[in-house]
């Protein structure tokens, strides 16, 4: 377990986080061996904020969403240790029926592929009604009425007739609105959006992002936004965390992290973004690939590719270093710049 420091400003005691993940480790068994694909030392999401968890493909970010719901496919995956505290209750210790009640009602999730997230043989209205009736105990008629309301909330054109349509009859953007409506239906306090705009084209993305921002304003829901796209997080989130090879490398307020990144990885990510007016002709790409979780490098997982690496980095696991209020970096060379 890696050393952590409290994120609070010295002298003030924060409210208890809505979601708190401690020392969560998930392992996966494959043909070539078993590896720990997610290793979260500590993650807090506070009530009312929107937190962005950023990482590249394979960094383990989608696993985080699945872990919170305890839906990691087993085999081949397994949670080996850790606790996930939601309003103080450890979700991993709950019996299945109680957990099922919380899913949807207290934690709502939007997944990344709206086409495959909807049952192809049922109308979208029916699926929404199922969720409403399960958690709110409404009658069929009341549920349908509420479904129409929800569709209007997500700005679904022609809400009434869409209710009767099948998923394949809707466009990608509309399907994602259905998923958002489903997420809002139970007025859950925590919304997890797992790459919610990934499979949509850019113009539709903008619409969905605006919608999410607006809904957050309106309902005050807490959002955990999982993304690979820095710009989306920059637009939507007040706090963010970066995930590399299953581990958090940096956490802090969005502004602080993006303006003064503390971790070489973050810096490299930001450097790689091409900017208008930039005269250089070659993208600043970092050499190498993320490590194989079955045989990760010793010490800091980023050190083989890190321009700032020193001897210590390959021997010991870096502890959390505080760069500013609420801004932490897990690095021996925290604050390094070239």
């Amino acid at each position, binding site marked *: 377990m890696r050393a952590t420091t409290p994120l609070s400003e010295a002298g003030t005691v924060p409210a208890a986080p809505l979601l708190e993940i401690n020392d969560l480790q998930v392992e996966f068994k494959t043909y070539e061996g078993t590896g720990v694909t997610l290793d979260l030392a500590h993650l807090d999401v506070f009530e009312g904020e929107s937190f962005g968890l950023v990482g590249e493909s*394979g960094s383990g970010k989608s696993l985080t969403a699945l872990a919170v719901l305890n839906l990691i496919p087993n085999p081949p995956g397994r949670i080996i240790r850790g606790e996930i505290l939601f309003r103080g209750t450890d979700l991993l210790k709950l019996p299945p029926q109680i957990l099922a009640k919380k899913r949807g009602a207290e934690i709502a999730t939007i997944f990344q592929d709206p086409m495959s997230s909807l049952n192809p043989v049922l109308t979208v209205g029916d699926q929404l009604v199922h969720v409403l009736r399960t958690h709110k105990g409404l009658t069929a008629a009341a549920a349908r009425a509420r479904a129409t309301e929800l569709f209007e909330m997500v700005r679904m054109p022609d809400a009434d007739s869409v209710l009767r349509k099948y998923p394949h009859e809707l466009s990608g953007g509309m399907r994602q609105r259905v998923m958002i409506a489903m997420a809002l239906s139970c007025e859950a306090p925590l919304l997890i959006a797992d790459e919610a705009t990934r499979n949509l084209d850019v113009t539709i993305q903008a619409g969905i992002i605006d919608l999410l921002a607006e809904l957050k304003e309106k309902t005050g829901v807490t959002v955990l936004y999982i993304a690979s796209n820095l710009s989306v997080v920059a637009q939507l989130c007040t706090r963010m965390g970066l995930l590399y090879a299953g581990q958090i490398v940096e956490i802090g307020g969005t502004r602080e992290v993006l303006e003064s990144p503390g971790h070489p990885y973050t810096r490299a990510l930001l450097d790689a973004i091409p900017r208008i007016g930039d005269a250089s002709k070659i993208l600043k790409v970092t050499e190498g*690939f*993320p*490590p*194989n*979780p079955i*045989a990760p490098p010793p010490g800091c997982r980023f050190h083989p590719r890190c321009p700032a690496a020193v001897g210590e980095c390959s021997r010991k696991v870096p502890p959390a270093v505080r760069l500013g209020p609420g801004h932490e970096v897990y690095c021996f060379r925290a604050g390094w710049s070239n």
Partner: protein
Amino acid sequence: MGGGRRSDLSAGGSRSAALKQLKYSVYLIRKNTLTTVGFSVVIALFLVAILAPVIAPYPDQALGATDMSQTLLKPSWHHLFGTDEMGRDLFSRVVYGTRISLWIGTLVVSLALLIGVPLGLIAGYTGGLVDEVIMRFTDIFLSFPPLLLAIAVAALLGRSLNNAMISIAIAWWPWYTRLIRGTVVSLREKPFIEAAKTIGTSPWRIMTRHVLRNSLSPVIVQASLDFGSVVLTSAALSFLGLGAQPPQPEWGLILNTARNYFLVAPWYSFFPGMAMVITVLAFNLVGDGLREITDPKTRRL
């Protein structure tokens, strides 16, 4: 996932990639105990068939020599499975029967594949009128009750094992045509086929090199499953007197005669029956295992 591994993306694949796939397949087979059992039994059966003259203690009796002094004996050390009503050692007959059954399975399935696969390939790839005509033709044969066909062939050409095999093959090929046509039709639209067409690859080359290679796995799975069904069907025909003729040691035929002695000599029908069950079971397990292995969702490499 990264780690420096790059997966081979070409449709054909290099030799080392193919070898890797093969090793992975073997790994998956061994992981699944049932499939391993199936494969082992199939290999054992082929060995028994090949080594029949060595294994069987009374090979001449297997082929028909009788010994009326030893009729309907119970299983003993001299006669592991007992003897039949003509005094023949049942163990030897069952062992030689393995030869016949495996021969039938191999021949019939190969024949059906030989007819069915090219037809399906052409129908699926060419499309249009050719496709329609071939599929109507296939439908007709599919609607033809296989038993009737076998009976007709038997009446026409005489009752023999070879004729029974021909009629089963005729009844079986339409399934492969349909199967492969379906796969080919869905592959036809895939980008890599269009790419091949764009650079001027001849249709023949596309069909054999690209389409066939990618549509073979369901056919292979079906063929292994069919091996068992063919053995069952041929035994059924022999049971009805339409296939193997006495004194051939074909299992179905043995069971036919054994029926009459059911009360007096229950072992007579038990052993050939068990032999059939084991054979068909083994091929079914292999077929099921192959199906799981070739399923892209289980292959996570």
